[in-house]
């Protein structure tokens, strides 16, 4: 008997639009996905992974690094093995089927980061339904790094909200956000100064410093 089940909402995104034009290869972060999942399992909770299309999230190569595990090679290797081999990371459900089967059986929701959730999850209607369920049922909803931006999916017009942000229309975005269940809540998210997209082949910037300015996700304007 477990203490309860954690629903991990993963992403299927592998590219993100950049401010300087083009896109960059991205994904979900290994440590951000695995560390909370393994910690919850050790504490007696069960874990279910679900994504928009029901396939396993692509891990951003930048996160598959011992540095992301505090320099602990054994911890990095345990994380890689858990993500590759553990049945809980391989029996991936569709967010839609989670909604259809009902969410009463889940104790909490978690959205890991990497840039990926800023592409699909933040405008995913099923995640919106899931977020509103957890909000109304007052169940803990944890979000990490870029994951907190996925909380925007709880808006009825999340797709339009994201499109307005991409267009640089913050006032329009604020209009689409009206009635958002999380308005006024204190929160944090990956900061503007922490934002670094590794220089990619699709980036036309002439130098690393130009890339740091232009190769930011358009949604991060």
């Amino acid at each position: 008997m477990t203490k309860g089940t954690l629903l991990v909402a993963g992403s299927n995104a592998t590219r993100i639009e950049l401010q300087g034009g083009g896109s960059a290869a991205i994904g979900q972060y290994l440590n951000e996905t695995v560390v909370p999942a393994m910690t919850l399992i050790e504490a007696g909770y069960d874990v279910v992974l679900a994504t928009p299309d029901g396939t396993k999230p692509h891990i951003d190569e930048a996160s598959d690094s011992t540095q992301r595990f505090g320099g602990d090679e054994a911890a990095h290797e345990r994380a890689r093995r858990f993500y590759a081999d553990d049945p809980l990371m391989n029996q991936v459900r569709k967010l839609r089927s989670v909604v259809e089967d009902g969410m009463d059986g889940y104790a909490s929701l978690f959205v890991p980061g990497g840039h990926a959730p800023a592409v699909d999850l933040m405008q995913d209607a099923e995640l919106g339904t899931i977020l509103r369920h957890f909000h109304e049922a007052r169940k803990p909803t944890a979000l990490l790094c870029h994951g907190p931006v996925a909380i925007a999916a709880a808006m009825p017009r999340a797709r339009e909200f994201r499109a307005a942000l991409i267009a640089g229309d913050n006032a329009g975005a604020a209009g689409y956000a009206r009635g958002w269940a999380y308005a006024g809540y204190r929160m944090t998210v990956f900061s503007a100064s922490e934002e670094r997209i590794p220089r990619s082949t699709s980036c036309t910037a002439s130098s690393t410093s130009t890339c740091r300015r232009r190769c930011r996700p358009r949604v991060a304007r």
Partner: protein
Amino acid sequence: MPAALQAAGGAVTSHPIDFALNVVVDRKPIAGQNPASDHLLATALIEALDRPLATA
């Protein structure tokens, strides 16, 4: 990303030092700022989950 959540009406704060551990809890949402906050976020989530069990 902070601008996106601010446009939505969220009260967003960031730690002034890049990649410093930072987790913000307001009622049920629990947000962690960066990859380095992975363990701290997991601990905050377990605390939030175990609290009702302890008082049940």
